[in-house]
């Protein structure tokens, strides 16, 4: 099952707001502008990126129960191999940067 863009947006919104924001903030619509800015920067640096292929690669089954552990392992592997993307000084794994690219 390939996820739709809407699925991915919802998954990332869940991923990036559920744990980080106080409970009172979680009821409001998530502010994805920061993530989108990082994603745009990634796409500018990697203009041939195919977003559909990227989506299928990162979240082949949408945001299922295995998604977070798999992404966590991929991000860790990126850091071990120094596969990083620098955004305004933030040293991010390539997996993180590509996830942000899906927000665009």
């Amino acid at each position: 099952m390939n996820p739709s863009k809407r699925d991915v947006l919802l998954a990332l919104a869940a991923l990036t707001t559920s744990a980080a924001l106080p409970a009172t903030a979680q009821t409001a619509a998530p502010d994805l502008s920061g993530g989108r800015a990082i994603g745009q920067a990634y796409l500018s640096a990697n203009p041939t990126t195919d977003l559909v292929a990227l989506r299928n690669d990162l979240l082949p089954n949408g945001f299922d129960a295995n998604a977070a552990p798999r992404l966590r392992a991929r991000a860790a592997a990126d850091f071990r191999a120094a596969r990083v993307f620098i955004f305004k000084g933030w040293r991010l794994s390539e997996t993180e940067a590509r996830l942000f690219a899906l927000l665009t």
Partner: protein
Amino acid sequence: MAFIDARTLPEATEIEADLILIGGGLASISIAKQWAGAGKTVAILESGGRERDMEIQALYAGAGTMRAPGNPDRNIDSYLVQSRARWYGGSGNVWGGKCGPLDPADFVRRDWLDRTGWPVTRAQMNPYYDRACDLMQIPRFTRDWDNDPDAARPPLNINSDFFSSPRVFTALSGEVDSAKFDAFRNDFVEASDNIRVYLHANVTNIALRRGDRVQGLEVRCLNGRRHTARGRNYVLATGGIENVRLLLASGGIGNHSDLLGRCFQGHVTFGVYENAEGLNTMLCVSDGQNMSLYADSGRANVHCVIATSLDGQRRFGTGNFTTTIFNSSDPPRPEDAAVLALAGALDANGSGARRHPCFFMSEQFPHLESRLTLLPEHTDALGMPRLYLDWVYSERDLDNLERSIAALGDALGAQGKGRVRFPVPREQLLSILNMSRHHMGTTRMSTDAARGVVDENCRVHGIRNLYVAGCSVFPTSGIVNPTLTIIALAMRLSDHLKRDMGVRT
């Protein structure tokens, strides 16, 4: 009459003592305290009085440039005056009181770095560090905070490439508690019958006899009085910059290897806080981690910085590197919030992340071209040539910083413990760094006269009775504030001099 104003002495007074300490900062005071009641006379010759005096402080004026590849040169003329304190107590009058020992790795010969290795190990220094802690009235540095943790203040434990390096503050600082520091610097002198402090006594020349022994010192006062001083042994302890000035001005004593004044190393911090683009140097830490061991512990508690271990330095091909961490309650910007949110969700416990402003420090390596030289055509009110400081960072120094930050970021990310942000391009490093008042390496210590100015006992190679105290003898600079090491080395030197002069310890 333990304190004597040299300006009031009759012209051409000959000051005599068994041990003469040139300069009245923490190094000299630490040594002199060991000699109270020792049955030998000790004279401290201090340029200043008991308080700051801008006319005396102006004797420090000189010129300087800081340079680094790819960066615009930075004028640091004012640094020569602002980073020093020329009155009794020296930099002890103005320092923040932060104490810590150099890391064990700092003493080791590191094959991947030039001119590293001390002629003394950390283990050999430990007894002196303990005594220095006692003198500074702080706890001794005996605890391994990673392997013997405090349950209420757990370590970050990233991996074996990084460790928690402790720091603690003493109240014995003129900046922190002037009354306490006054008692520290004055009471032992008042109470002893063998220690005299000569104020307003500027040593302007070290005269040698037969080239291998100090015959005496020329002493001048700003009111025109001239005196001399003679002793059996002499300790030059006027600070990492002024030590060089006096040795160079005295004909280049100790410059047998052309190393006198070279290998100047300083401590600087690399951090930005809400810069022009609103960016900060930052650590994002997984929310489950209690950071109280590192952040905002207050002056009463030990706090740690995250440091690169010897294994890590070897693996990364770097030198020492630390991250000093603070707390922040400011709301994050949207892009920071996104990073925190995703990292917090992905990291091991998936429970979010917090941001901590931080600054980084990386060891400056000893380079021959980073040096102090005299400006013979420019002299001060005493006729002493002024100094030029050419403070040079190499490509390797900048690599060390960037590679270390990357290694920390990768290790935090791989372990699911956080992320790192350093939003400063290489060509802006010189303009954003903050300089500490630590001046090291210019009379470097080595058992080999061809590789150093002083030997392992801090005696100037080839001069029988002249020693150097202070951080100018550090072969490498490490990162921690140097004062505790200065005091520990002063204790060690004091013991050596006592043995040499037949004083029972």
